[in-house]
Structures are given as C-alpha cells and as structure tokens.
C-alpha cells in the first residue's frame, strides 16, 4: 500500500508541466548526445548542469537523469547506422547491428534496440523501487567508519574492474584525492593550496574538472585522430520488429535486463561490462553461435537491454548510500550537492519527492524515448551527416560557456583547459580517468569520514575493523587488492577480461 502511495506521489510530481518538459528535454538531449560520437553523457550532464541552477532540484535531477539513460538509447543509433559506437556501452551493438543494417534490416535493429531498452528500463525502475528503500533503511546504521570503508571499497571495485593497470588506476585515485584537498578544509576552515586565488577557495570545481577531462579531452582526442564515418545511406524502413524478431529477442532482452540491473549496482563501467557480458552469454547459449557477428537480432537486443538496465541499477547506491559508482553518477551526486541536497540514506525519507519523482520520471522517460526515437531516426541520420570539423568547435564552445557561466571566472576556464590537458595525456599514457573523477567528487566526504573516525577512536585505525559492517568492507577491499597482485589470480582477471572481449569479437 505504501508503495502505491509513493508511486502516486512520484506521478504527481512528474506530471507537473515543468517536470514533464524537462524530462522530455533531458531524454532528447541525451539521445542527441548518444548519437553524436565524441560527446558522452558525462560531458553532456556537465555541460547542462549550470543551466539547471534556476530550476528546483527535482526538476534538475529529472532532466540530468534523462540525459544519462537517453544517451544509452542514442548510442545504439550510431552503432547500427555508422558502425561507430556513440557510447562505449554500444560498442558491442556495432557487431551485429551494423551487419543487420548492411543487409537492409536497419529498421528492425533500431526498433528492437528501442523496445529492448524500454523493457529493460522498466525492469530497472521496478527494481529500483523495490530495492532502494529497504537498502536505505539498512544504511541508516552507517557511521563515519562504515562510510569511509564503503567509499574505499567502491573505488577499489571500480579500479579492479578497470581495463588497464590497477596500479595506474590507484595512482589516479590518489591524485584525485589530493586535488580534492585544494581549497578550504571543511573541518578547520584552513585554506590549502589556494595560492591566494579566490576561486580556489571552494576547491578545483567539479564542473571545470569534468568538462576538461571528458569534454575537452575527448574532442582533442577526436581532432587528433580525424574521425571518419561510414554512414548507411539507404532509407531506414520497417522500424517495427516482426513476430520472428520478437521471438528471437524476448529472452535475450529479459536476461540482459536482469544482468544489467545487477551489474549497474556495482562500481565501474557497468553499462559496458553488462553489454559485453550479455553478448557473451547469448552467444554461448545460442543454438547458432556461429551466426553472431553476421547480423542476428539477439546480438542487438540483449546488449542494448543490458546497458539500459545498468543505468537504472546505478542509481541504487546514489540514492541509498550517496555513493557514486561511475563518473556519470558522480556528476549527479555533485548536482545534488550543488542544489543543496545532502546525499546519503536519508534522501529517501527527507526528499521523497526527489526520489519518487526521479523514479517515475525514469519510467516516463523510457516511454518518451520509445515514442521519440522511432519516428526521429531520420532526424538523427541528418545530425550524423554534420561533418565533425564543423561540429567539434561547437562542443568546445559549449564547454567554455558552461564553465564561464558558473562564476564568470577566467580562472575556471583555465582550470578546464588544465584538466583537458590531463585528460588528453591520461588517454595517451593509458591512465583511467574515472578513478580521478570519483576521487574529486567523493574526496571531501572520504576525508571528513576518515578524520571523524580517527577522532572518535582517538587515533586508533582499528576502528575500521572493530565495526562489523566496516570490517566486511575492509576485508573485501583488502582481498581485491591482494588478489590482483597475486600472479595467478591477477592473470586470471586479465584472462577473464580478454575472454569476454574476444568471445564478443
């Protein structure tokens, strides 16, 4: 009964005209961002975040969340039509999706990607409604030691699942932690590393960092490589999948939805991992695995469902614990704080309109995406025809305006350029950027919880072991770190990653 009341509350909030409009704008912009290679949901949310300061927090979060799952949708369009993934999570859709397009079946591929994503989004929203409230109640027992060790565990899982070197990912995390200390200390009010620059009193700033690392750096990397496109130019027909397509796709969609939802709760690039895993599973259990890669609809339906469901699952740690599991959710967490919402398990009880409003908006947003994307395929094809040499200056312009409009500060534009250089070099030197971003966002919280824990325990670090919940987190963290260093297990981790990647290719 309670659940029904909460759903009614959420519906009441979402059906307000402004929230409906912003939900629509969010999914539309998310789809556009997903369609355009070179601009991800992270950069898009960072670009649009300053424009949400004038609207209520619920409205802002509804729009920003819409951009996230909208981008997953949009990424499949370029994968199928252009063989360039719009998002990293759509890489695997290129394999069978583009082959279907080359055979004149772009319509059913796009259609099934849309329907599969809608079903997966619905599954994820239901999961979120059922799982988040009880988990939030459990999290009320958390104190500073639990929070610190949970955040540490979250980062270590993210690093463990990283595709590159664990040592290098750890170094980026510590680097991010150090950068997060720049500015005024929350506890003592002491200024650290501000060098007399007023703008640095509040820290390096999440927006300049994100814009630089993901917006500017991404564009510069694309400018370097001279992006070329192979656009399928034949008219896209028959967007509705036929009965046979539905029969072949139904169970892959269901499996992908469940898989993606549970992966989404884990830190890391969950949409990517869940899409790859779904493809590997479907190929393994298929009666005709040799057909994968030649244009089978299961190769599109399962991964697209998985990556969309993962976006829903990722909201669980955000709403229940205030912990971001990837860089997109980290920016949403930043948006919470900018709008004056303290993240943590109290969000659901203190801001029920925010929680239930966002959940119902996700369901509505998925329905909007289904309605939007099928008729608008023609428009997205036209957008894809805009040459990148004309497009990229506008992306950079948005980054510049987005940062400048925060505080009208040239120092912050300078910071964005510096982070752009860091992001560009990070890609070149193969250092993961996600641990850096997460550390910048959660660094202040980690520091506060660490120092509070040490004050409570009078300097005894064993407090993290003496509290049972914290001890479990520390044990798992330690196990993951040590296991990656043990040659046998470390090799198995690499082999497992390589197996998933080669099974799919």
């Amino acid at each position, binding site marked *: 009964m309670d659940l029904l009341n909460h759903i009614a509350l959420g519906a009441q909030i979402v059906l307000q005209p402004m929230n409906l409009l912003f939900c629509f704008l969010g999914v539309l912009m998310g789809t556009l961002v997903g369609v355009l290679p070179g601009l991800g949901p992270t950069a898009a949310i960072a670009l649009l975040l300053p424009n949400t300061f004038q609207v209520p927090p619920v409205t802002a979060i509804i729009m920003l969340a819409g951009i996230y799952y909208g981008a997953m949708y949009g990424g499949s369009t370029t994968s199928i039509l252009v063989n360039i993934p719009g998002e990293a999570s759509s890489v695997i859709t290129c394999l069978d999706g583009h082959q279907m397009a080359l055979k004149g079946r772009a319509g059913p591929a796009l259609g099934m990607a849309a329907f599969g994503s809608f079903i997966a989004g619905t599954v994820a929203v239901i999961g979120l409604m059922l799982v988040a409230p009880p988990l939030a109640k459990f999290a009320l027992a958390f104190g500073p030691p639990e929070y610190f060790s949970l955040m540490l565990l979250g980062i270590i899982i993210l690093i463990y699942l990283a595709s590159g070197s664990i040592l290098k990912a750890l170094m980026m995390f510590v680097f991010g932690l150090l950068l997060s200390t720049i500015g005024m200390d929350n506890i003592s009010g002491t200024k650290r*590393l501000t060098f007399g620059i007023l703008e640095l009193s509040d820290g390096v700033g999440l927006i300049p960092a994100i814009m630089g690392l993901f917006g500017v750096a991404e564009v510069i990397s694309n400018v370097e490589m001279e992006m070329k496109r192979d656009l399928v130019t034949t008219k896209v027909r028959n967007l509705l999948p036929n009965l046979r397509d539905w029969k072949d796709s139904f169970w892959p969609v269901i499996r992908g939805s469940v898989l993606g939802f549970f992966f989404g709760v884990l830190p890391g690039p969950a949409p990517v991992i869940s899409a790859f895993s779904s493809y590997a599973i479907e190929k393994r259990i298929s009666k005709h695995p040799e057909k994968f890669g030649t244009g089978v609809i299961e190769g599109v339906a399962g991964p697209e469902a998985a990556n969309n469901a993962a976006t829903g699952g990722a909201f669980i740690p955000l709403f229940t614990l205030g912990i971001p599991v990837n860089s997109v959710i980290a920016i949403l967490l930043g948006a919470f704080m900018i709008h004056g919402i303290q993240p943590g398990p109290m969000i659901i009880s203190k801001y029920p309109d925010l929680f239930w409003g966002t959940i119902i908006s996700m369901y509505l947003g998925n329905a909007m995406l289904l309605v939007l994307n099928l008729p608008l395929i023609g428009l997205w094809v036209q957008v894809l025809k805009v040459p990148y040499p004309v497009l990229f200056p506008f992306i950079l312009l948005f980054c510049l305006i987005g940062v400048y409009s925060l505080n009208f500060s040239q120092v912050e534009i300078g910071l964005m350029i510096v982070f752009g250089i860091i992001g560009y070099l990070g890609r070149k030197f193969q250092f993961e950027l996600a641990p850096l971003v997460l550390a910048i966002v959660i660094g202040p919280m980690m520091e506060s919880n*660490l120092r509070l824990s040490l004050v409570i325990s009078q300097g005894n670090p064993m407090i993290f072991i003496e509290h049972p919940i914290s001890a479990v987190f520390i044990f798992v963290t330690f196990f993951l770190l040590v296991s990656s260093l043990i040659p046998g297990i470390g090799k198995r981790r690499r082999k497992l990653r390589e197996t998933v990647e080669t099974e799919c290719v």
Partner: protein
Amino acid sequence: MKSYDRIAAIFFLAVGGFFSLYARRVKIGTWNEPEAGFLPFWGGLLLVGMSVFLLLSTFKAPDSPVRMTFFPVAGAWKRVLVTFLSLAAYNLLLNRLGFTLTTFLFLGFLVRFIFPQGWRRTLLVAFIGSVIARLLFINFLETQLPIGILGF
C-alpha cells in the same frame, strides 16, 4: 609504453612530493587529531611510494614489442596544440572583445584551420554559430556573458 610509464611515474612522484612538503605548512596533526594537512601529507607519501614502484617496474618488465608513437597520425600534433591554444586565446579575449565577437573568431578559426574548410563555409558557420549562441545564451537564457569593447 615503458617510457610513457616512466614519464608518468616521475610526474606523479613530483606531485606527491609537492603535496607532502606543502602539507607541512598547514598543520598535519596526529592520528588522534588529524588536521588540515593530514590527508595531503599521507596521500602525497602514498603517491610517491606508488610512483617509485611504477618507475622500478618499468626497468624490470620487458617492453611491448609494438612501438607506440605519441602522435600516430602525421601532423596531428599541430591540430592538438592549436586547439588547446585557441581555448586559451578564447579565455584571454572573452572579456576584452566580448562574447559574440570572440565566439565568431573562435568558431571561424577552428573550422578554417584545424580540418580546413572553404572560406564560405567557415564564415557561414562562424556567423550563424555566434549569432545563435548570442541569442540563446544572452537574450534567451540571460546568461551574464561579457559585451566587450564593440558594445555587442
């Protein structure tokens, strides 16, 4: 790849060392009462340790047989450098020339000189882009962007 890792290790060694040394200017405190310099100090030391480990590992492991070039595409370094410099130039000119004119010059420069487009296309894109940006951000969204010496 080993040479890249060495350069990165030296960079992070310097960063970690800097933070650890700086932390001594603000109070580090004790484990009982950690102060503002606590995390920068210990975090800096941790980064130094990891950097040393990375540096040493580059001398032990064999290098990849595939030689990586920093700029695999010929002439790419110019595009990268010029794009970064144009961002810096935008920052410097924004308050002097104003948003509309600076945006016009920025768009025109990038469209013309990074992946060279014809002059007609360049001027069209720069003009339409700067006008739309002005109408959207200044007139519609009322963002406080600088007007500049020419008054628009």
